[in-house]
C-alpha cells in the first residue's frame, strides 16, 4: 500500500473542496448572510490549508495500484463528507453530527435523501452548498482532480476506475487527463445549458442554479418543501428532459461532439435505457390516467417520476406514494435498474442488466444445446468471461449488502415498505422511497443506527460497492501495516 500517495491525493481533494466553497461564499455575500459566509470562509481556509500541508510534495513512488485506487477513493469520499458537513453544523442549521453527515453524504453521493423537515428556512448559502455537493459528487471529485492536477504515471487510471460508475471504464482519448477533462467539459456545458433554459422558462435565478446542480448530478435535493410540485408544467418538462440526458452514458455525448452520431445511437445501453423509459412511462400513464383525468397531466407526471427514479435523481412533481400499486411497483423496480454506466446516475446500471439478461439467455440455451459455444456480445463486441463473472458478483454483493442493511433498519419496527424502500432508495442513490420515506416525507425520524447504515449504503452505492468494501476490509492493510510496524520496531 502506498500510504504517502493516499495522503497526497486526499490533500488535493481537500484543496479542491475548499476552493469550491467559494460558490456558497459568493452566494452568501450576494444575499448578505454575513454570519453564514464567515463560517464558510473559515471552513474553506482551514480545509485548503490542511490540504496543502498534506500534499506538499508528490511522493517519489506515485504508483497507484487498483487497491490503492479503491482505498484512496473511499477515503477521499469519507473525508469530503466529513468536511462538507462542518458548515451545516457550525451554522446551527443541522446541529447534530449524524444528521449533518447524513445530509452531506446524501449530497455527495447524489442521493438526495434529506433529514430536513423544513428546507425553505435554510439560508441561501447553505442551500446552494447543499445542491453543489450533488454537482461535485455527480461526476466525481477524483475525476475532477485528474482533469486539473497534472499527475504523471500510467496508474492514475485506477483512481478513475474506482470512482466512475459502470462495470468497465473506457477512455475517450488516450490520456487519462484528457479523458477527465472531456467528461467535465461535457458535464459543465450541459449544466450551463440547463441553467439558461430554466431561467428562460421563468424559474428564479437562485432556484435555477440549485435545480440544475441537482439534476446534473442526478442528486435530488430540492430547495422547496414540495420539491417540484409547485413549479410550472414547462419547468417540470424541462427538468424531466435534462434528468434523462444526465442519465445517459457520457461516451454518447463524446461521440456526438466528435461527429460519430450513428455510432452514438448504436450504443446498446443508450437504446435500452430509452426503451425502458418509454415503456414505463406508457404503462404508468395508463395506470394513473383516472387520477388526473387528462392525458397531458398523467403523461407529464408519469414521465417526471420515471425519469427521476431511473436516473436516481429523486425529485418529485407529484406524491407518487398515493399512486396505484402497479405504478409503485414499476417505480421500485426502476430503482434497481438505474441509469447508464458512465453517467452521473446511480443504481445498478442498465449495462449490467443487459449483460445479465444476455447471460441468462445463454444459460437457457446451454440446456437446449449443451455443447453450444456462444459469446456474449455488447455493441457488437464480445464481453469476456471475467466481465460477466464480475457482473454476477456485483449483483450478489449488492444483494448481501441490501439484505443486511434491511435487517438492521427493520430493527426500528417500521412497516416493510418503508424499510425496504428506504434501503433501496439510499443504496441506489435515489432519495425518496415510499410510505414514511415517500416524496413528501423525509428521513429525520430514523434512529442514529439506521442513519449510519444508510450513510454506508449511500457511499457504497455511489462508489459501486467494492471500493467501500476494500476500504473497510482489514486484510487490505494487514500485510503492509505489519511490515511497516516490524520495520519500526527494528
Amino acid at each position: 500500500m502506498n500510504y504517502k500517495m493516499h495522503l497526497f491525493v486526499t490533500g488535493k481533494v481537500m484543496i479542491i473542496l475548499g476552493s469550491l466553497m467559494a460558490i456558497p461564499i459568493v452566494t452568501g455575500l450576494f444575499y448578505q448572510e454575513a454570519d453564514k459566509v464567515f463560517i464558510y470562509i473559515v471552513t474553506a481556509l482551514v480545509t485548503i490549508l490542511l490540504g496543502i500541508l498534506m500534499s506538499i510534495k508528490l511522493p517519489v513512488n506515485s504508483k497507484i495500484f487498483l487497491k490503492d485506487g479503491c482505498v484512496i477513493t473511499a477515503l477521499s469520499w469519507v473525508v469530503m463528507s466529513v468536511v462538507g458537513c462542518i458548515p451545516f453544523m457550525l451554522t446551527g442549521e443541522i446541529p447534530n453530527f449524524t444528521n449533518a453527515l447524513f445530509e452531506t453524504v446524501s449530497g455527495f453521493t447524489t442521493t438526495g435523501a434529506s433529514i430536513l423537515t423544513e428546507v425553505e428556512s435554510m439560508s441561501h448559502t447553505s442551500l446552494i452548498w447543499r445542491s453543489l455537493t450533488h454537482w461535485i459528487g455527480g461526476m466525481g471529485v477524483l475525476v475532477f482532480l485528474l482533469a486539473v492536477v497534472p499527475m504523471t504515471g500510467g496508474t492514475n487510471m485506477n483512481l478513475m476506475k474506482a470512482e466512475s460508475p459502470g462495470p468497465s471504464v473506457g477512455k475517450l482519448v488516450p490520456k487519462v487527463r484528457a479523458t477527465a477533462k472531456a467528461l467535465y467539459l461535457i458535464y459543465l456545458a450541459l449544466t450551463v445549458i440547463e441553467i439558461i433554459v430554466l431561467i428562460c422558462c421563468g424559474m428564479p435565478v437562485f432556484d435555477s442554479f440549485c435545480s440544475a446542480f441537482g439534476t446534473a448530478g442526478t442528486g435530488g435535493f430540492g430547495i422547496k418543501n414540495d420539491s417540484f410540485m409547485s413549479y410550472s408544467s414547462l419547468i417540470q418538462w424541462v427538468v424531466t428532459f435534462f434528468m434523462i440526458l444526465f442519465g445517459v452514458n457520457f461516451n454518447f455525448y463524446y461521440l456526438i461532439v466528435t461527429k460519430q452520431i450513428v455510432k452514438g445511437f448504436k450504443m446498446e445501453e443508450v437504446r435500452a435505457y430509452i426503451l425502458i423509459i418509454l415503456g414505463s412511462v406508457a404503462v404508468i400513464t395508463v395506470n394513473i390516467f383516472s387520477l388526473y383525468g387528462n392525458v397531458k397531466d398523467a403523461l407529464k407526471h408519469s414521465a417526471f417520476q420515471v425519469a427521476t427514479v431511473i436516473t436516481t435523481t429523486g425529485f418529485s412533481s407529484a406524491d407518487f406514494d398515493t399512486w396505484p400499486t402497479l405504478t409503485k411497483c414499476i417505480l421500485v423496480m426502476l430503482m434497481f435498474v438505474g441509469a447508464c454506466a458512465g453517467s452521473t446516475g446511480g443504481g445498478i446500471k442498465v449495462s449490467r442488466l443487459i449483460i445479465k439478461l444476455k447471460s441468462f439467455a445463454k444459460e437457457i440455451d446451454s440446456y437446449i444445446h449443451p455443447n453450444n459455444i456462444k459469446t456474449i456480445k455488447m455493441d457488437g463486441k464480445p464481453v469476456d468471461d471475467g466481465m460477466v463473472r464480475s457482473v454476477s458478483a456485483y449483483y450478489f454483493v449488492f444483494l448481501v449488502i441490501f439484505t443486511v442493511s434491511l435487517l438492521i433498519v427493520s430493527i426500528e419496527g417500521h412497516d416493510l415498505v418503508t424499510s425496504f424502500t428506504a434501503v433501496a432508495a439510499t443504496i441506489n442513490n435515489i432519495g425518496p422511497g415510499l410510505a414514511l420515506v415517500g416524496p413528501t416525507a423525509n428521513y429525520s425520524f430514523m434512529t442514529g443506527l439506521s442513519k449510519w447504515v444508510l450513510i454506508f449504503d449511500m457511499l457504497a452505492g455511489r462508489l459501486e460497492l467494492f471500493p467501500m468494501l476494500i476500504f473497510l476490509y482489514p486484510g487490505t492493510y494487514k500485510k503492509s501495516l505489519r511490515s511497516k510496524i516490524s520495520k519500526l520496531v527494528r
Partner: protein
Amino acid sequence: MNRSGLTIIIVGAGKVGCTLAVRLTDEGHNIIMIDKSEDRLNDLQKNTDCMILHGSGSSHETLEEAGIADTDLFIAVTDSDELNLLCCTIAKQFNSNIATIARVRDPDYGNEIPYLRSRLAIDMIINPEFEAAACAARLLFLPAAISINTFAHGSAELVRIRLPEDNMLDGKDIAYIGKNITNNMVFVGVERGEEVFIPNGSFVLKGGDVISFVSSRKVCLGFLKAIGYNTKSVRDTLIIGGGKSAFYLADQLIKSGISVKIIEKDPKRCEYLSTMLPKATILNGDGIDSNFLEEAGIEDTDSFVALTGIDEENIMLTLHARNVSNAKVVTKINRITFTQVINSLNLGSVIYPKYITAETIISYVRARQASIGSNVEVMYLLLDGNAEAIEFKVKEESSVTGVPLKDLNIKNNVIISFISHNGKLIIPTGNDVISVGDNVMIVTTQKGFTELQDIMR
C-alpha cells in the same frame, strides 16, 4: 518543450509494443494500442496511460474506430511480418499523410526491404533482430567495450568501458587524459556503483568505474591501447541458439573473417542454417548441457554469445561461460525487466533488442515532431536511462548556428560531444561554430529534446 504530443497507433502489444507504449507515453504522446488479446491489453493499461482497442490491426473497422484519420504515426509490431506490412498498407489507404513503421524480421525479406519500403510506401522498416546482431558484432570487433553506439553514419562512436581496479587511470582526473594521452575525445558519463556522473575536467576516476566517451574509432583504439587494453577483434565465436539474430550475427562475422560456431537444438533449423551459412560450423545439441559445451570448445573460444529465446537460459549460459573461460561474453535479454539484478550480475555486455527498437522509433518520432530547423538523426539512452545521447542534423540557420560555442547560452546539463563538419569529426572547443549541414551530437540528462535549439537556455 511543451509541445502537444503526436497521436500514435501501435498494433501488437508484445514486448516491443509495450516498451514503445510506455516510452512514447512518457514522451507525452497519445498512444492507441490495438491487439487481439484482451488480457495483454488489460495488463498494459494497468501501468500505462494509453487507450486500448481490442481487435485486428488490419481490419478497416478497427482502424477507423481508433481514429486513423487523425493519427500521425502508425507502428505495426505484431509477431507476423506479413501482418505488419498489411496493417501499414491499409493504414496508408485511409490516411496518406500518416507515417508508417513496420517490423519485419524474417531473413527471407532481408534483401527486399528497400523494395518493400518504396513499393508499399512504408516510411520505416525495422528489424530488431538485425539491429541486435549488429550491436553484438560491434562488441566482438572491439571486445574491450561493454557497449558501443554509433553516430554520424559510423564515423563517431560512443564507447563504454570498465576500468580495471589497477588501471593506470585510477586516481587520475579527466584533464590528465587530455594532457597526456589524447584530447580528441569527450567523456560523457561515469557510472560508479549506483551513482551516475557527468564528469568535468577535474573529475577523478577510480578503478571499477564504467566510463563512456565519444570519439572516432581511430582515437578510441589509440586511447584504449595507451591505457593498457587489448584492442584486437576476436578470432572466433561460439553462439548458442540459432534464431534470427544468430543468423544475422553469424552472417556479419563470417563476412569479416571471424569463424563462427552455432549450437542449435532443432535439427531442422540446423539444416536451414547450414544451407544459409555454409562457412559456419553448426552443432546440433542442447546448449544448456555443460559437457556438450565443453566438447564444442567453450574453454578456448575468444567470445561467447548467448542468443537463445529464453532469457534465463542466456543468463545462466553467460555466467557459466565467465566461469570456465576468459571469453568476451554477450547476452541477449528479451523480456526480463529486473535491470538492477542484471546489472549486479556483472554479465558483461547485455543486448536488449526491445530497447534498441524503441530507441530507433523514438528518434524517428522526435524527428517528426521537430520543426524543420534541425532533425534528430539517432538517439540512444545512456547511463541506465539517466541520460540521452542525440545526434542532430542541422538543416537551417537558427539561433545556434554561426555563433562560437563559448558565446552560446547553453543549458547546464548539456554536453556538445562532437560536430561533424563535411564528414570531419570535430571535438568542439569554445571557438568552434555550428553551421548548416553539420551533424551535432549532444549528451544531456534532460529528456525530450526534439531539436538542436532545445539546448539553449
